[in-house]
C-alpha cells in the first residue's frame, strides 16, 4: 500500500506539472479543431439550404408545452370554420362526431353532438331491399365526406386532391435547420405542423412580378414551390362566430389550425397529464435508487 501511495502521488504530480499540461491541451485542441470545422461546415450548409422556402415562425398555442391543453372555445370556433369552409373539399375520415363530446376535445355536450351529427346526411345501406339510402348522422358516424372517393375529389379540384384533415397537423412540418432540430428534441416543440398550416392560411399574396405562376395555381410563399392548387380559403368574416369573436383571417386560421391539431392528436391532454405524473414517479424512484445504490456501494471501496 505504501509503495502504491508514493507511486500514485508522483504520478499525479507529474500529471499536474506544466510539461504534461501542454501535451494535454494539444489533445483537446485537436478535438476542438475537428468540432469547429464540422460546425462551420454545417452552418454554411444550412445557409445554402435556407434559401428555398420561407421559414415558418413559431406561433403561441395553448396546447404547446408540458402543461399544454386545448382551448375549448377555440376548438369550437375551429370546428365551425372547418364545417362552414373547409369541409366543402376536405374530409376527416378518422374523426367521429362522438369525438366532439369526448374529454380533451372541443367540449360539446352529448346532446349538442347529436344535433350536429343529425345536420349531416350520411349514405348508409344496403337496406333489406338491397338499396342504399340517406339518413341523418349519428354520433357514432364518421364525419361526412365531401366526395364519394378520391377520383371525384380530384375531378372537382382540377386534378389536385384536397388532403384529408384527420392527421394533417402531424403530417406537415417546417424546415427547422441546424441547430434547431437538435434543440427541439429537448424543448418539446411539437407544433411544427400546426405552425405551418397557420402560416400557409395567412400566406396568400400577389405573386412577385417576375414569378411565373401557372394557370389555376395560387401564390403562397409558405407552400413548397410557392404554387398551391388551393385558392385562398379564408377571407375576413367568412364565418360568423357564435361567441362574437371577430372573424379575421388570422383568427379563423388560428382556430381551424388548433382544431386540426386536436383532430390529429385527440389524446394530447391525457398524454401530457399522464406524462407529468410518470415523470414525478420516475424522479422519486430514481432518487430512492440513487441513495440505495450509494448505501450498498459504501460497503466496498470504489
Amino acid at each position, binding site marked *: *500500500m505504501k509503495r*502504491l501511495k508514493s507511486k*500514485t*502521488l508522483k*504520478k*499525479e504530480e507529474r500529471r499536474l506539472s506544466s510539461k504534461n499540461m501542454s501535451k494535454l491541451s494539444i*489533445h483537446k485542441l*485537436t*478535438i476542438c479543431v*475537428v468540432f469547429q470545422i*464540422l460546425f462551420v*461546415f*454545417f452552418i*454554411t*450548409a444550412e445557409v*445554402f*439550404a435556407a434559401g428555398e422556402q420561407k421559414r415558418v415562425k413559431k406561433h403561441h398555442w395553448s396546447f404547446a408545452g*408540458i402543461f399544454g391543453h386545448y382551448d375549448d372555445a377555440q376548438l369550437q370556433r375551429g370546428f365551425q370554420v372547418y364545417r362552414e369552409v373547409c369541409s366543402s373539399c376536405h374530409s376527416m*375520415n*378518422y374523426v367521429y362526431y362522438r369525438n366532439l363530446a369526448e374529454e380533451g376535445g372541443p367540449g360539446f355536450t352529448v346532446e349538442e353532438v347529436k344535433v350536429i351529427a343529425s345536420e349531416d346526411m350520411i349514405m348508409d345501406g344496403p337496406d333489406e331491399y338491397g338499396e342504399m339510402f340517406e339518413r341523418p348522422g349519428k354520433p357514432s358516424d364518421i364525419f361526412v365526406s365531401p366526395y364519394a372517393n378520391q377520383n371525384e375529389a380530384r375531378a372537382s379540384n382540377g386534378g389536385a386532391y384536397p*388532403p384529408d384533415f*384527420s*392527421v*394533417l397537423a*402531424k*403530417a*406537415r*412540418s417546417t424546415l427547422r435547420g441546424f441547430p434547431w432540430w437538435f434543440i*427541439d*428534441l*429537448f424543448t*418539446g*416543440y*411539437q407544433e*411544427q*405542423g400546426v405552425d405551418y398550416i397557420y402560416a400557409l392560411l395567412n400566406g396568400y399574396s400577389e405573386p412577385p412580378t417576375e414569378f411565373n405562376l401557372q394557370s389555376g395555381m395560387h401564390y403562397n410563399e409558405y407552400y*413548397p414551390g410557392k404554387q398551391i392548387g388551393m385558392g385562398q380559403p379564408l377571407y375576413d368574416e367568412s364565418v360568423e362566430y357564435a361567441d362574437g369573436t371577430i372573424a379575421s383571417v388570422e383568427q379563423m386560421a388560428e382556430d381551424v389550425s388548433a382544431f386540426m391539431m386536436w383532430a*390529429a392528436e*385527440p*389524446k394530447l391532454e391525457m*398524454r*401530457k397529464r*399522464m*406524462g*407529468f405524473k*410518470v*415523470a414525478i414517479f*420516475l*424522479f422519486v*424512484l*430514481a432518487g430512492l*435508487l*440513487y441513495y*440505495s*445504490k450509494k448505501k*450498498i*456501494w459504501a460497503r*466496498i*471501496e*470504489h
Partner: protein
Amino acid sequence: MSKESTYIPKSGLSKWFDQRLPLQRMMHDNINAFPTPRNLNYWYTFGGILTFCLVTQIVTGIVLAMHYTADANLAFASVEHIMRNVNYGWLIRYIHAVGASMFFLAVYVHIFRGLYYGSYKAPREVLWILGVVIYLLMVITAFMGYVLPWGQMSFWGATVITNLFSVIPVVGTTITEWLWGGFAVDNATLKRFFSLHYLMPFMIFGVVILHIWSLHVTGNNNPVGVSVKEKQDTVPFAPYYTVKDAFSLVCFLILFAWFIFFNPNILGHTDNYIMADPLVTPAHIVPEWYLLPFYAILRAIPSKLGGVLVMGGAIAILFILPWLDTSKVRSATFRPLYKQFYWIFLVNCIALGYLGSQNPEGLFLVASRICTAYYFIHFLLVLPILGLVEKPKPIPESITKAVLEKIEIKNIKERRAEA
C-alpha cells in the same frame, strides 16, 4: 473467475428441483452470485437497459398486433384506430415507436462503450460478434417495423431498400420480386414484413441469450481492461450491479418518458402520417435517424452496386474488428493515440448521420465521401497501425489496485483543493 456453483438449496422442494432441473441454481449463479468486476462505470449499465428495451418492444408489439391490420388498404387506418379508439392505444403505440429509437440509442452507447474499452478483444471475440449479429437483426426488424404503418416513408423506404437487392448480378431482379411477392412493393410485401417483424424479435431474444452466455463464460471487461485476477477484483452481481443497473435504467426511462409523453413524433418523419401512395414520391426519402449513417454511406458511392457493397461492408467490417485491432491493450484509458482516434471516429459517425439526412449534392456529397472513406480508414488503417506504433501508458497490475489508486488520486486532489 470461479466456475463452481455457490448455490445451496434451502427448502425440500428446491432440493427436489435442483436434482431434476437446476433452474434456481442457474439463476443464482448467473444473476445473484455472478462475480462482476468492481470498477464498472455507468456506461456498463446499458446491457441491462437494452434487455429492458427488447422486452418492452416485444410486450407492446404483441398488444399492437392484436389491433393492427396488415393489409395495404387498412393498415394506415388501423394505426389511427389504435391511436384513437383503442384504450390507451396511443400510449402503447408511442412506447413502441419511441422505444425503437431508444433501443438504438442504447445499442449505440453499448457499442461505442465496447469500442472505447476494447471489449471486442480476446477472449471476447465471440461475445462481440454475437453483439453485431443482434445489431444486424435489430436493423432489419426496425426497418420492417417502420414499413407497417404504411405511410409515405414506410412505402418509399421499403421501395428504396428492397430495390437494393436488384443490383445483384443475374439474379437481382428475381430476388427482389421474390422479396416483394409481386412486381412492386404492395400488399404481399406488407403482409410478409409484418410476419417477419413479429418473428425477428424472438430471434434477437435467442441471440441475446447466447450473448449473455458468452459474457458469463469470459466475464465482464472493465474500464481498465485488466482481466479479473483475484476474488477482491469482483463483487457479486446482486446487490451491487442490480441496484446500479436499476438506477441507470430509471434515469434512461426519464428520457424515454420525455419522448413518449412530450415529444412522441419528433423522432419520426412527418410524411409517415400521409397514407402510402405509389404515385406520389416524397421530396426526400430518408430512413429513421438511427440508420442515417448507413444511408449516407450508400449514397456516397457513385455506383449503385458499389454503394450497396460498401454499405454492407460498413457492418461486415465490425465482424472482423477483433482481428483488425492489433493492440493488446484493451482500454483506451491507457492508449493515448487510440483515444483521440476513437473520438474522431465517433464524430465521423455522427457527421455521417447528419449527411444521411441531407440531399447528396454539392458540399454534402463531398463530405459524405470523405466521412465514408474515413469510416473504413479507421478500421483498415488506423487500428492495425496504431497497435504497432503506439506506446501504451503503464497498465495497473489489477482491478483492485486501479480502484485504490483512483481513490488515492481523488484524496490528493481534495487535499490540494483544501490547501
